[in-house]
């Protein structure tokens, strides 16, 4: 087990290193970062000064090492666009993204588990078919389309909810659901199939013979065991949340990291882009490792595979 964890950590480190290299080189290829903030009137000397100040006159690999050294000491650089330390910006924006993602996760669980369980219990009924359609639709609709259609129905036509911005729970309902829908589809399918497996198990038959009420069998005996399947997909769910949050924050003008990274990309603020993408990648790799290790703990076959 220890060997597995160490191996997995090393792999993760390698991945993070490769990603940092890719992100760094790509954002430097993207064009002169100074071009975005200077106009024609800035003098040549001024440009040279800035270039030197930001270390842009050094060779690329030197820039990379300086960047990594700073990164490891927690200095993420200063954003061109906002003219503030990126670390500060991230700390300011991260809570909004986390809040929305957590809400989306809760929504996902609250919808996906009950429907998944009931679909399995009432297999092949109209409820099951309806659930399946709901899931297939969720996996076929891009997040921005779901967000905009929901916004149009509930905010514009019915006027029940605000169209955009950050505020109370009301502001979170539409973006939260739009962000969670894709995952609802995936988790629903997984819950249904693992519930179907569990419902056939011997101990469930025994519980029935003992005369335990059916609802208790379903929710206490079966559901708990069926949970393992969907939970192991957590890294996938997390990845979808990250990419989804970039889109949904743009659609609903939600002031989080996703919106920030889009704004930064549009204004060629490569320091901010690097920092945010690296943060997302780091989180993603970490969640991946945690998921794998948990899974290996639960299912020993993985460790030796």
């Amino acid at each position, binding site marked *: 087990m220890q060997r597995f964890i160490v191996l997995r950590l090393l*792999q*993760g480190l*390698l*991945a993070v290193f*490769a*990603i940092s290299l*890719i*992100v760094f080189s*790509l*954002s430097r*290829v*993207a064009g002169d970062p100074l071009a975005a903030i200077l106009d024609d009137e800035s003098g040549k000397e001024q440009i040279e000064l800035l270039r030197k100040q930001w270390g842009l006159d050094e060779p690329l690999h030197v820039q990379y090492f300086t960047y990594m050294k700073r990164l490891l000491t927690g200095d993420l650089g200063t954003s061109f666009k906002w003219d503030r330390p990126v670390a500060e910006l991230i700390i300011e924006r991260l809570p909004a993204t986390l809040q929305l993602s957590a809400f989306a996760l809760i929504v996902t669980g609250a919808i996906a588990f009950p429907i998944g369980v009931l679909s399995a219990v009432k297999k092949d009924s109209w409820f099951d078919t309806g659930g399946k359609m709901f899931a*297939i*639709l969720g*996996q*076929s*609709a*891009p*997040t*921005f*389309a779901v967000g*905009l*259609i929901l*916004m*149009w129905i509930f905010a*514009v036509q019915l006027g029940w909810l605000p*169209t955009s911005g950050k505020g109370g729970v009301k502001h979170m309902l539409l973006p939260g659901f739009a962000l969670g829908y894709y995952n609802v589809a995936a988790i629903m399918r997984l819950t249904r199939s693992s519930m179907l497996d569990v419902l056939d198990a011997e101990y469930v038959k025994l519980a029935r013979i003992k005369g335990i009420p059916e609802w208790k069998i379903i929710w206490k005996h079966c559901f708990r065991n069926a949970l393992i399947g969907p939970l192991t997909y957590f890294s996938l769910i997390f*990845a979808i949340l*990250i*990419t989804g949050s*970039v*889109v949904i924050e*743009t*659609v609903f003008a939600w002031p989080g990291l996703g919106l920030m*990274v*889009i704004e930064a*990309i*549009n204004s*060629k603020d490569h320091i901010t*882009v690097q920092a945010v*993408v690296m943060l*997302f*990648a780091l989180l*993603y*790799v970490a969640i*991946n490792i945690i998921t794998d290790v948990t899974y290996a703990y639960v299912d020993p076959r993985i460790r030796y595979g």
Partner: protein
Amino acid sequence: MAAVTTSPEVTGVDTQQRAGRVAKVVRAIRELPLIPLVVLIFLLVIPAIFANQLAPHNQRIGVLDDAKLPPFWVSESFESRTVVQRADKDRLDVEIGLTNAQRKVERGEATILSGGEDGTVDPGDTLRFQANKGGSMEYPLGTDKQGRDILSRIMHGARISLMVSSLAILLGGGLGTLLGMMAAYRGGKTDAIIMRIVDIKLAFPSILLALVLVAAIGAGFTTVIVVIAVLLWARYARVVRGEALAIKQQDFIDRARVSGASNARIMMRHIFPNLVNTVVVLATLEVGHVIILESTLSFLGAGIPAPTPAWGVMVADGRDLITTAWWIFLFPCLAIVLTVLSMNLLGDWLRDKLDPKLRNV
């Protein structure tokens, strides 16, 4: 006598056989996922091929006078608002600013309902004007803010979607298949290196990678295809490697080697044909995914650049007008959802037919 008794029997068997054959064909057609196929043919394939002939209007140049016309079933509607000196931004549904109101009356677009006895517009008057022009069959699905026909743009958008997805899958799938086969066949170091790269690639959220890539190379048709291909290849490599490893174990590969076939020949003539089903099913399953990726990138402004009528671009165009002109964003949204939905249903069906093992992928 004998001939008389046998001939009806023979024809009976014959018709039975024919009936059996007909039934088989009927069953085969019935088993086809008809609705998704019909939707795909009419929404994606036909418009994509015949966009130039079928589209009623130019997809890039609109008529400004016809801007923001609703779809044909929406009739014109009128609104009454109170004229105020300066309209409050949050109350635009009940108020209208004085200057704006005067302009509307001068142009004859509005009538004064009450308080306009003196013939001029004053604050406090009620103004009645046309809120929406009526739709017509001239533009069946309405027009956007530049007066371009939505239907024509959706048709040309289908062409973009089809082209991007087929080219990206061809490129990404081809690369992935090749690398997956190499990894399985060569084994050892080649395998280790390729699979490590796959792991790294899969350990990175795809949209973000795409955004950074597009920001680096600059948005455009070729960029989008390359970027999506870069996102796709890893999954192919992983699945194909698994399949190819199993095929490599079989006897006929050893026999081919004994009979002197070269490595390239074994890969192309003996391993690849056994992978075709898997590759085709994966490709079908990926089309929907690619259309979603492309439209998301275009929506975020990092995909197909603006004047080209990609569906994602059209949705982005209509986003700001969601309160006043819903048809601009809604129809391209529906086009994406319906196409991807049908493609996914078709892919599921094909997988169950050709390669049920892939169900867990």
